[in-house]
């Protein structure tokens, strides 16, 4: 444990907005605005935050899948991948060709199991595709065996391999997506809200499956979600994002039971409780909407909605600092 495999430093992702007759750059969406975190081998890092705070963008930036769908994206910072020998590589500025080598180590599971599988391909073609790219030396029979084995691992019958995705339920499709991500024995899997499109009963199965697979194969997860109880259940550590920044980062129990940052407190207090009377927890209700990342507030991004905001919050950007609970939080006015 405690061997770093991914080290993200000061990652920025900005999308340019164009307008006017000559399509000049008129504005910039700062979707991810300087975040830093690390992931250790065998660890699950949960990344939570409300819609539009940049969670998904972080995940996609880590494996360079932003440029194909939005050509005007600007990435800066470092995403250092550390292999088993301890060699560091910054993935952000690699060319497509250089990146190919690392793609088998970092894979992704997508949010929407209906659009993340190509409808025109059979399950076997879908699951075998990473193998054909990264293990071209594998023989046809070996690929078939591996696909059957993977399908079994994710709880699907290998007989399904000649079927098409539209014949499966949402949970089954997500299992196919997991099998595809597992195909190349990755060291890190980025899970972009893998269960939020699923039925609650199926959510639990998929989460348990993912946790079992992690303890069996020993890879790391970056688990992106907005459902705090799900994230707490599966994660070792949790990072809380707000408006493109990490506001709190710590062990799951630290963040979940003793939240420090005012935003995390509000977020945790919104988790539904089976019996609210028993816990006697105070519900913190934030007012106003999340500001648009087009024009972020100066200083601390949270100050427009923060219950303990002071006038000088507009003057500086708070940095993550160690708090009493043991977690890091980006607010100087809490302990």
């Amino acid at each position: 444990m405690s061997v770093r495999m991914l080290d993200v430093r000061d990652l920025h992702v900005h999308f340019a907005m164009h307008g006017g007759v000559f399509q000049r750059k008129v504005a910039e969406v700062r979707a991810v605005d300087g975040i830093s975190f690390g992931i250790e081998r065998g660890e699950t890092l949960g990344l939570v935050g409300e819609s539009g705070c940049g969670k998904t963008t972080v995940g996609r930036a880590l494996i360079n899948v932003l440029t194909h769908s939005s050509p005007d994206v600007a990435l800066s910072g470092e995403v250092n991948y550390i292999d088993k020998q301890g060699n560091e590589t910054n993935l952000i500025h690699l060319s497509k060709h250089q990146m190919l080598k690392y793609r088998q180590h970092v894979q992704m599971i997508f949010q929407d199991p209906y659009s993340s599988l190509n409808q025109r391909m059979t399950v076997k073609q879908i699951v075998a595709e990473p193998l054909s790219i990264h293990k071209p030396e594998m023989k046809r029979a070996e690929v078939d065996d591996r696909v059957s084995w993977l399908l079994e691992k994710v709880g699907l019958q290998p007989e399904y391999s000649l079927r098409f995705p539209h014949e499966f339920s949402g949970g089954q499709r997500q299992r196919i997506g997991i099998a595809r991500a597992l195909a190349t024995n990755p060291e890190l899997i980025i899970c972009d809200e893998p269960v939020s499109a699923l039925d609650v009963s199926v959510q639990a199965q998929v989460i348990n499956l993912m946790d079992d697979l992690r303890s069996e194969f020993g890879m790391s997860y970056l688990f992106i979600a907005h459902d705090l109880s799900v994230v707490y259940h599966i994660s070792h550590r949790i990072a809380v994002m707000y408006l493109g920044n990490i506001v709190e980062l710590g062990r799951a129990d630290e963040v979940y039971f003793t939240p420090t940052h005012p935003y995390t407190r509000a977020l945790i207090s919104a988790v539904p409780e089976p019996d609210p009377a028993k816990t006697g927890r105070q519900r913190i209700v934030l007012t106003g909407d999340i500001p648009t990342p087009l024009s972020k507030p100066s200083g601390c991004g949270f100050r427009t909605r923060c219950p303990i905001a002071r006038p000088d919050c507009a003057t500086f950007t708070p940095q993550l600092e160690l708090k009493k609970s043991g977690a890091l939080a980006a607010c100087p006015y809490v302990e």
Partner: protein
Amino acid sequence: MKAGKQAVTPGKKSQSLLSRRWQKFKSLKRGYYSFVILVIIYLLSFLLPVLVSNKALVVQYNGSKMFPAFADLVGLASYHGYEDFGLKSAGGEVNYRRLSQEFEKADNGNYVIMPLYPFSPQEDISVEGNEKFLPPLTPGTHTAARLLGTDDRGRDVFARMAYGLNVSLSFALLLAILEYCIGVPIGAISGYFGGKFDLILQRVVEIWFTLPVLFIIIIVVSLVSPNFFLLLGLLLLVSWISIALYIRAEFLRERTRDYVAAAVSIGVPTWKIIVRHILPNSLVPIITFFPFSIVSGITALVSLDYLGFGLPPGTPSWGEMFGLGVQYINQNKWWLVMSPMSAMFFTLSLTVFVGEAVREAFDPKTFSRLR
């Protein structure tokens, strides 16, 4: 555990989306039968040299057999003069219909078997007397009845119509296929890469789109004599653009879908993402558009031929026949106009029925059928 499993039972045969759509297309009877009829007619039209021709299928002469019509079909020399059959040379190729009568008269074991309909679209008519403007179903002086009469030069209208079908459909098919060959790659590249590249390419396409094709054709045709492939090329100049625009729009939408991101994250090469992932998912507008682009190809050729800027004179084409009919329309020569018009009407109707059924088969909504 495994609650979602009931959704699929193993052992049942699995179907791809495309084969499901083909099943649905087959269930739309009007479109499916139109498709079958069109395919049969078009394939038969390649056999026209042995079905509709003034050349004999078999000639038995003094113990040896000849097959001039089949030689024609496969493109071999099939010329036989009168002297080859011991007759007085009348210049030019032998008229097998007359030869048949001669053999019958002589009654010495020689015989001629003619095709089903023994007339050609181009014939030397000087031999049998001048049979101009024969109305439909009236027999000529020496010959069997002509199904749809003859035109101002004594050429058989039915034969011309039949050969015209092959020319029209071949032209439209080739035009549509070439349109796709140019339009699909350009639209795909423009839509997939997007950004500045797309911006510039689209402006170029918009400018190119303003080319006045009809004027260009008129000018070119007045300079050089037109042929099948020149016309094809000229019409192709702008007709690929609409396909390219459709495909571009499809690619713009599809490239943001997660399965493309998944393919990128796996490291699938770009060309493979375009060809294997996005293209099969963008086929709906291409396939539904195809029958209609054939309709427009047929109409384009007919109108050019009608105006006299089309295929070289003498080629059996509906537009030229139509123009001829219009010239004689006030002299009660109704069959000259009616024949090419009804041929066109039937072909276009069948094609549109096919197009309708294809569109319906690709419609994701199950209950949207209009009957």
